[in-house]
């Protein structure tokens, strides 16, 4: 991994939100790299900070109340934190694109698909008129929309959820971005449609060589389409690893618990599903030590007092005093 130059490099990123109840640190010092052309999963449960991470990369953290208070985000060696809005606008949509979770709300209901797609092309690629429309039709065809030349003149409400998500993908990829952030792209879709859309993302990623960061809570989707994954818990990265060892031999007790509690089709019915006891800690009242200590079966005194540092072995990284339950 180290012999390649990362496309995106996030170092010690901290994002804080000023809320009525106090200062919340949604992301607390995370670091990770995305290599060119790879698909990386960003996994975790609600509130762990995975969506805020992708918003921070795009410079879209709502401010106020949010603010990036420390750390750096570099795209191809260029620092993005602190970039003026006018510069950021040139990057969004052309170098980094995003697909949002809600295909229903991410498209503007009062404009046709053609309108919205040619807008992006006009801004970033300076193509207009007929040429832009043809390019948009080409993209729609690429994402598998039947009769794209007719569909392009329709409004978002005339399309189904799966179709809208395809339009989003087509729009996001129309300027050949180097990095695509997909925030829960299939969560709002049915399984059969999810399978269609994921197949499409994987195929396009392969054909166009775009790097993809797939933000999701669905470990099944990660297992099928990512090469590497980062597991987040309460604003921190607890483990990052290539996909196969992560699923076969999770090092952090949280990753292990998460893997075990995925409902899956089993050959034999089990009486009791494995669970992780307790709930995610309140970000306003975080424990001093490891954030997972209260729910962890291996935790000892040290876990409750000190924050574990990231241990790096080979290509894996884990923040735990007792990786995989071993005694220290």
């Amino acid at each position, binding site marked *: 991994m180290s012999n390649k130059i990362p496309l995106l490099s996030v170092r010690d990123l901290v994002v804080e939100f000023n809320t009525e109840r106090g200062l919340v640190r949604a992301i607390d010092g995370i670091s990770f790299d995305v290599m060119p052309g790879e698909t990386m999963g960003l996994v975790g449960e609600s509130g762990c900070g995975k969506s805020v991470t992708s918003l921070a990369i795009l410079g879209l953290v709502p401010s106020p109340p949010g603010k990036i208070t420390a750390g750096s985000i570099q795209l191809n060696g260029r620092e993005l934190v602190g970039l003026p809005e006018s510069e950021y606008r040139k990057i969004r949509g052309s170098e980094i694109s995003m697909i949002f979770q809600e295909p229903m709300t991410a498209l503007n209901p009062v404009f046709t698909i053609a309108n919205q797609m040619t807008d992006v092309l006009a801004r970033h690629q300076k193509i207009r008129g007929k040429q832009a429309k043809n390019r948009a039709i080409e993209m729609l065809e690429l994402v598998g929309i039947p009769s794209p030349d007719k569909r392009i003149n329709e409004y978002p409400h005339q399309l189904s959820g799966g179709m809208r998500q395809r339009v989003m993908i087509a729009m996001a990829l129309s300027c050949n971005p180097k990095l695509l952030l997909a925030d829960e792209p299939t969560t709002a879709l049915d*399984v059969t449609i999810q*399978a269609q859309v994921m197949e499409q993302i994987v195929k396009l990623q392969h054909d166009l060589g775009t790097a993809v960061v797939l933000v999701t809570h669905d*470990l099944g989707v990660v297992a099928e389409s990512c090469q590497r994954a980062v597991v987040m818990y309460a604003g921190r990265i607890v483990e990052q690893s290539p996909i196969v060892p992560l699923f076969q031999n999770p090092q952090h007790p949280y990753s292990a618990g998460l893997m075990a509690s*995925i409902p899956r089709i089993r050959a034999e019915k089990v009486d009791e599903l494995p669970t992780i006891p307790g709930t995610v800690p309140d970000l306003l009242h975080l424990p001093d030590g490891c954030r997972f200590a209260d729910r962890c079966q291996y935790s000892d005194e040290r876990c409750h007092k000190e924050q574990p540092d990231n241990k790096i072995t080979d290509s894996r990284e884990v923040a735990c005093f007792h990786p995989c339950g071993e005694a220290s």
Partner: protein
Amino acid sequence: MSVLLDVKNLSKHFPIHGGFFHRVVSQLKAVDDVSFVLEKGKTMGLVGESGCGKSTLGRAVLRLHEPTGGTVVLDGTDITKLGAQALVNARRDMQIIFQDPYASLSPRRTIQQTLLEPLETHNIGTAESRQEKIEELLDIVGLRKHILHRYPHEFSGGQRQRIGIARALTLEPKFIVADEAVSALDVSVQSQVLNLISNLQRKLGISFLFISHDLAVVQHICDDVGVMYLGRLVEKATATSLYKDPKHPYTKALLSAIPTPDPTIKNERQILKGDVPSPLNPPSGCTFRTRCPKAMDICAQKAPVEVEVGTKDEPHWVACHLFESS
């Protein structure tokens, strides 16, 4: 085993208004001619994609939607023929747990008020015995009693869903409809709530109609499973039989579409083409034929009827022309 719930030819059609005089121009057949039987103490799963009518069916069974046709017999009483007061009384035996734990609890009532309400409505017990009862219920669902004076916003999704379950249990019902009861929860919490539901069922002997789009969850919790597509049951069987040997092409596609949480397995996936057709204008004959990889000529002409394909121990029905001739 004795039958608790017997649903026969249940239909729910919604009128579509249109035109100048706002007349009824057509009918949307949300649930069309559905029959199934639920035994005492068993759980039946109802799966299908959004818009297939599974929630409408759940509500029609409770008469939260007035059924258009068919009968629902709960423990010997035909619910569809009850008058208003009799229906209120009958509702003691049937309850529902909703999908969204954020929207299904009144934000202006404390947990105590929410849990006491059903007991007060039905005039059960004295003030003290009611209080005792709800404290006992909290204990059953794994919450501490000091939360009684709190409001819903103070709880996490998992805790709210536990409160929703406690509310459904207050009247000691025989039958509960769980409509996507765990879909809004994170996996680690989802499995906690699923374990709670299956424990309750074992302990209290309540029958559940468990509506979900997640086939893996349904397999864990259900004894029988029905698969719905565009308002019709296309396949029903015991959970064992359905997962081991799915018959209907739709069920097969649904099962193969689930992502496997194991990166070393690359399963041969059968991806369905296209979307679910509009229920306003469903295809002729078999409604699944437009997406079916095995569609034949007959599928467009005639709607398939349910045929028995299982054994005595593992009953299995499927509505598909592929199995009709045999």
